[in-house]
């Protein structure tokens, strides 16, 4: 009875509103340690939907579960950078200390161990989440102390004995995360006048603001590079009373952690940019979609929003401007890379699973609640604020002709100084490698797994939309690294994170991954390279959204730029037999059933 009352209360807190399902099930998960299937009917009834819709949401997100988990869930980051930094040894230590394997919960219900995709801490790897608390720079030696402390007090915050720099030490954040800002540029991380951009913007007409953002050449920082001003113009001109400003703070591309630092150190710049966008577009509501991995920043961000409300920078008649009303809420994600895709993000904000939508209609015409919606990246909003303050010419004078401004890069992997670099577009890979202390790099992954891996002969290329685009992720690999292992890790990631909506992405990624594993197991033949290339191209060409249209890139770009890593391990098939077929392995089941070895095929 008590449980039912609690669930009803949670549903009520979110207005018994079906579109707030993400918040409802997140709260229930927090309260009970899972979303109990026996209450799906109750949740559905309270929120005015169907039980299978509840199940549909719960089963989509990795931070939600229909099975009871431990009071403390330790999620160890499994991306390749963390593996290179020793995540496997840390995992073994956790398993030893708790006596359970990953994917399991201790009998006393206190701990669960899980692997998770990149949590945005690749500059301080190996890293993990203990519930919402971030643990960085883990070593196997630290693990016994961690578990001991948690057994003494089941509050992961006790593990934070020393806070990181800057706002990481803020009363409302209190995390061991370090910013690792290695180079500040003039747009984002340099000094700036608080609210100068917003105040200058509201002196203009909304059309003039849009014109300025267009003329500045500001392109979307999430990776695709669409002109921000043009997006705003489409949204402004779209018919509809209600319009929405969405901020994509779901940076899930492995190796990307630059929005983490902007949200920590420049939250006002983000919210100010959203407010400028609201003024330009005529929107009244803004939503920041914050990835679940960054839940530790939530209280701090809520506080910044409250401060802005109190200062008249949000709410009604903003900055004293009659009729300029706008407010922002934070929507928490629940662990799904696909929700960084704008239409998936919108679905998730609407309380549904994060399946992407068809375009047209574009979000600018029919987005959140089928209303005109502008979705931009955290960094894009920061840039827009700065364009307003410092002017079009100032901004477009930085960077290259087609890529104006600076780019915030998050660099990790085999380099002396991993961290955040704000550099003007057009910086070459060689220049970047020098800054980060990795002049002996053998390979660089630009733009995360969905980007491309380049070899040293391409290090004179420039980071820019026209040459080497990146949402921010830069991973460096030295010559000791097994690049096929890297490729496999990336393909594992995509196979794990694809939503499964369309056939080519759902099946193609699994087939690509399986063949890659075979090759790494020494069962590859020369023809496999052709198989991978054809299958990769088919997956790219036929997939519905950006995920499947880029997921074969790790394979395709290494086949092109690092062909020897394949040719070294595949062999010509001279026997005519299928090398991937292991007859002894295939016989195992039959041997077990019959209780004897095959006469023809035995070891």
């Amino acid at each position, binding site marked *: 009875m008590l449980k039912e009352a609690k669930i009803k209360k949670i549903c009520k807190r979110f207005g018994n509103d079906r579109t707030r399902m993400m918040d409802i099930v997140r709260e229930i998960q927090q309260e009970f340690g899972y979303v109990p299937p026996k209450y799906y009917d109750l949740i559905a009834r309270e929120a005015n939907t169907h*039980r299978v819709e509840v*199940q549909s949401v719960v089963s989509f997100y990795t931070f939600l579960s229909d099975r009871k988990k431990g009071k403390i869930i330790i999620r160890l980051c499994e991306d390749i950078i963390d593996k290179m930094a020793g995540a496997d040894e840390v995992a073994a230590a956790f398993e030893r200390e708790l006596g359970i394997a990953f994917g399991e919960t201790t009998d006393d219900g206190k701990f669960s161990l899980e692997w998770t995709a990149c949590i945005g801490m690749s500059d301080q790897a190996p890293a993990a989440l203990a519930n919402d608390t971030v643990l960085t720079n883990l070593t196997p030696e630290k693990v016994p102390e961690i578990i001991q402390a948690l057994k003494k007090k089941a509050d992961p915050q006790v593990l934070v004995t020393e806070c990181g720099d800057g706002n990481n030490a803020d009363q409302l954040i209190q995390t061991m995360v370090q910013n690792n800002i290695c180079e500040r540029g003039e747009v984002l991380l340099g000094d700036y006048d608080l609210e100068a951009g917003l105040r200058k913007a509201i002196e203009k007409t909304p059309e003039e603001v849009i014109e300025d953002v267009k003329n500045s050449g500001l392109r979307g920082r999430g990776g695709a590079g669409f002109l921000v001003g043009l997006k705003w113009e489409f949204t402004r001109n779209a018919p509809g009373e209600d319009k929405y400003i969405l901020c994509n703070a779901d940076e899930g591309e492995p190796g990307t952690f630059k929005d983490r630092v902007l949200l920590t150190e420049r939250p006002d710049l983000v919210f100010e940019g959203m407010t400028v966008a609201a003024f330009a577009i005529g929107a009244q509501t803004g939503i920041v979609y914050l990835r679940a991995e960054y839940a530790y920043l939530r209280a701090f961000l809520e506080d910044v929003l409250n401060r802005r409300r109190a200062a008249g920078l949000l709410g009604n008649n903003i900055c004293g401007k009659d009729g300029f009303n706008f407010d922002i809420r934070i929507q928490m994600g629940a662990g799904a890379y696909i929700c960084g895709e704008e239409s998936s993000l919108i679905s998730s904000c609407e309380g549904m699973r994060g399946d992407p939508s*068809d375009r047209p209609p574009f979000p600018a015409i029919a987005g959140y609640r089928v209303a005109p919606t502008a979705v931009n990246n955290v960094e894009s909003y920061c840039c827009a604020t700065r364009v307003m303050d410092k002017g079009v010419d100032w901004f477009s004078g930085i960077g290259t002709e087609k890529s104006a401004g600076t780019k915030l890069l998050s660099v990790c992997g085999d380099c002396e100084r991993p961290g955040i670099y704000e550099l003007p577009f057009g910086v070459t890979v060689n220049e970047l490698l020098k800054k980060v202390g990795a002049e002996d790099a053998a390979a660089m992954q630009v733009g995360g797994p969905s980007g491309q891996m380049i070899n040293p002969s391409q290090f004179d290329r420039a980071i820019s939309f026209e040459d080497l685009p990146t949402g921010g992720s830069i991973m460096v690999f030295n010559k000791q690294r097994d690049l096929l292992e890297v490729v496999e890790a990336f393909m594992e990631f995509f*196979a794990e994170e*694809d939503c499964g909506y*369309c*056939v*080519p992405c759902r099946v193609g990624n699994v*087939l690509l991954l399986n063949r890659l594993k075979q090759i790494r197991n020494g069962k590859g033949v020369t023809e496999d390279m052709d198989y991978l290339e054809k299958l990769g191209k088919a997956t790219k060409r036929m*997939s519905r959204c950006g995920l499947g249209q880029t997921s074969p890139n790790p394979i395709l770009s290494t086949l092109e730029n690092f062909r020897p890593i394949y040719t070294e391990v595949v062999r010509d098939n001279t026997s005519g037999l299928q090398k991937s077929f292991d007859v002894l392995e295939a016989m195992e089941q039959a041997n077990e059933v019959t209780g004897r070895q095959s006469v023809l095929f035995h070891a």
Partner: protein
Amino acid sequence: MADKLKFTIDGVEVQAEHGQTILDAADAAGIYIPRLCAHPDLKPIGSCRICTVVVNGRPQAACVQPAAEGMVVENDTPEMLEHRRNLIDMMFVEGNHFCMFCEKSGNCELQAMAYRFGITAPQYPSQFPDKDVDASHPDVMMDYNRCILCTRCVRASQELDGKNVFQSIGRGFGRKIGVNGRQALGDTDLNVDDRAADPTICPVGCIIKKRVGFEVPIGERKFDHEPIGSEIEKG
């Protein structure tokens, strides 16, 4: 605004109403664009991607892409034929499809599509996934081995029956069709006469009615007479 807009498919001029999809306009013109998840009575969702055509150089699903004046559509090209064949192969290997003893053989759109494309065996390795069979409902059964996740049942239940019997659950390769009941189909309000249970809604043999198996003998079934798409090509 002109009454109708004009565009080309493989060089042939086609007319379309405003708002009409490429697929519908092609159908009206007697040009068959292969499709599996699209159904004339249901809203299109573009999940099987078989109907992908190249529109002004970019691949788009014809079932959801609105026709536009002057667009150049490539449909029956070697590239698209190859990619569609790839997709059909993918659907075969991701499930467990045994045509020789499937009740839907001859009426199965996936099988018919494979025949139309001259596929005798898939080029990719079969994944042999573990799938459930749900026989809990008194009149209808579900064999998940054969499901291709086209969601035609989901849409039929919502759009035609005014119910919500099915919905997608899970994600990635583990995605499946869930049912709106405590455990299984028998716990839902699905009725045997619902359109969602109609054999023309499920394109494969996943949702089938009980006690009517093999009423029409193999050899006399829909696609035994002529290939899939023939009605459209005949105009």
